[in-house]
């Protein structure tokens, strides 16, 4: 018996794919926004994958409190009015030949030195993508790993107290991992990276150049089109089709659409439509990981319990509550960030405050240019 056969024999025979799984995979191919779909999925990945990971690694104990606690920060106007005002201010963007979007995603981890517990942002990357206005003008996807860093000014103070380490050994799902404060150059290789000279004309959120002028601006029609029950079921499958997941998914869906060059009227309509959805609440002002303030909508919050089943150390175990938040620029109506925030500290985040950002996707910039866009050299932090 050789090792190859031993390996072969030692893997159990899995169940074949279900009819639903096959249909879902096929539906992905048949959807018209073909090129942008993976990016959309990637955007949604945060939600769907987080849901899947949760099912495996954690015990989820429901959610759906009608009035989740609000993060600190003054609220001057009626919360909902704020979001709607931002929607109105979504100004007409000038158009150009190339659309680009620069986004940053990151995940928080907890450092627990004797000098005081603080949070770092690790597993953080920046993705820069551009699309020609028309098919055949090309499209490109760049990415780079960003340095791990203390998450907030308060964390930075505690980090300095701990001797300003440049390596961070933290618990990550089911193992310890060391993140470093090293930056990477922009990469064009790897999954979801590279250029396609024949691409273009299709954008994030599954909209093509042809769709753009035909999108409705009416919030009811937009809600039907992008947040309808059928649409949501297609994305989640029945396994995740509870109300909490659906509202988070709608939020991600809108964020993907807002990353595309949709008109100001559509932008405003989408924000209004989202604000109307069940399970979505206006929460006033909030701050994103790039320290930008804006007005925010949030999903119901949900309870997560880390049981220690996957070897989590004691300090990581316990129960916390969190919600998904989308933040808009109050002046322009632009999308700033989608982030998961702690509403009731506990478990791994026991020493953090309400509003603590667990993970995020923030839009650093987006817009039209007449020349082919290139990613910015400057790092977004520091």
């Amino acid at each position, binding site marked *: 018996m050789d090792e190859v056969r031993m390996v072969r024999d030692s*893997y*159990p025979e899995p169940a074949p794919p279900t009819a639903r799984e096959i249909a879902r995979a096929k539906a992905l191919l048949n959807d018209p926004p073909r090129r942008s779909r993976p990016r959309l999925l990637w955007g949604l990945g945060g939600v769907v994958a987080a849901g899947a990971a949760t099912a495996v690694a954690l015990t989820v104990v429901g959610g759906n409190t009608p009035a989740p606690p609000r993060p600190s920060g003054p609220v001057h106007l009626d919360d909902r009015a704020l979001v709607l005002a931002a929607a109105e201010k979504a100004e007409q963007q000038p158009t150009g030949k190339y659309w680009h979007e620069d986004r940053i995603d990151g995940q928080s981890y907890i450092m627990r030195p004797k000098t005081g517990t603080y949070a770092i942002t690790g597993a953080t990357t920046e993705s820069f993508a551009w699309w020609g206005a028309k098919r055949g003008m090309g499209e490109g996807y760049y990415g780079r790993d960003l340095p791990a860093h203390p998450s907030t000014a308060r964390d930075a103070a505690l980090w300095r107290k701990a001797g300003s380490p440049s390596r961070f050994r933290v618990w990550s799902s089911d193992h310890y991992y060391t993140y470093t404060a090293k930056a990477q150059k922009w990469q064009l290789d790897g999954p979801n990276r590279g250029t396609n000279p024949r691409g273009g004309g299709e954008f994030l959120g599954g909209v093509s150049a042809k769709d753009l002028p035909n999108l409705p601006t009416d919030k009811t029609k937009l809600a039907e089109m992008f947040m309808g029950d059928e649409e949501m079921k297609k994305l989640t499958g029945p396994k995740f089709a509870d109300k909490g997941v659906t509202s988070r998914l709608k939020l991600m869906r809108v964020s993907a659409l807002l990353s595309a060059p949709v008109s100001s009227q559509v932008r405003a309509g989408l924000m209004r439509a989202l604000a109307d959805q069940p399970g979505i609440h206006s929460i006033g002002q909030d701050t994103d990981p790039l320290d930008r303030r804006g007005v925010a909508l949030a999903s119901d919050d949900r309870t997560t319990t880390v049981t220690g089943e996957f070897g989590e150390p004691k300090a990581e175990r316990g129960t916390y509550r969190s919600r998904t938040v989308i933040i808009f620029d109050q002046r322009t109506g632009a999308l700033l960030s989608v982030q998961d925030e702690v509403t009731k500290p506990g478990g791994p985040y026991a020493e953090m405050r309400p509003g603590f950002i667990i993970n995020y996707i923030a839009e650093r910039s987006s817009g039209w240019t007449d020349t082919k866009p290139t990613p910015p050299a400057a790092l977004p932090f520091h």
Partner: protein
Amino acid sequence: MTGDPPPHPAESFDEVFDAYFAEIHRYAAKRLGPDAAADVAAQAFLEAFRQRHRYDPERAGVRTWLYGIATKVLGRHQRTETRALRARARLGPGRGAEEHTERVDARVSAEGLRGELAGAIAALPRGQRDVLLLVALADLSHNEVAAALGISYGTVGSRLNRARTTLRKALGGTNPMLTLEEQHG
């Protein structure tokens, strides 16, 4: 694979999907478990669909091409794979994986992945693991693995040898048959 020539992805992707989806799903399910498999298989076919015009029949068969794409997509799920392997490694020798997770289909072989073997596979560098599992689980030849991963024939051989040596050591390396085989190269 006999009979009609395989469909060309650029012309009839639906046929490619119908012919190979279950097989690619099986490969993903073996490596990642049933939950991630559907997503990975779907992503692999989406990726393939996007690249269908770039498919070159001179370089590789459709099946090989798809395994290459699936392996790349799988690469984004390293943690899931490592977690699945570690979970089995913790069970120790001789216990079925299905005892650990009720999601595994009831029809799985009673044996499951032996603990030490799982641990050793989990510890392999990704390049070696991909080569080993394409040979062991997908039954690809060295030539096909080279085409699927875009590496040279020689690299396939050396990665496979290194992987086998590691596994052998992990399993105690006491089987005289294995030693003999090593001598024959």
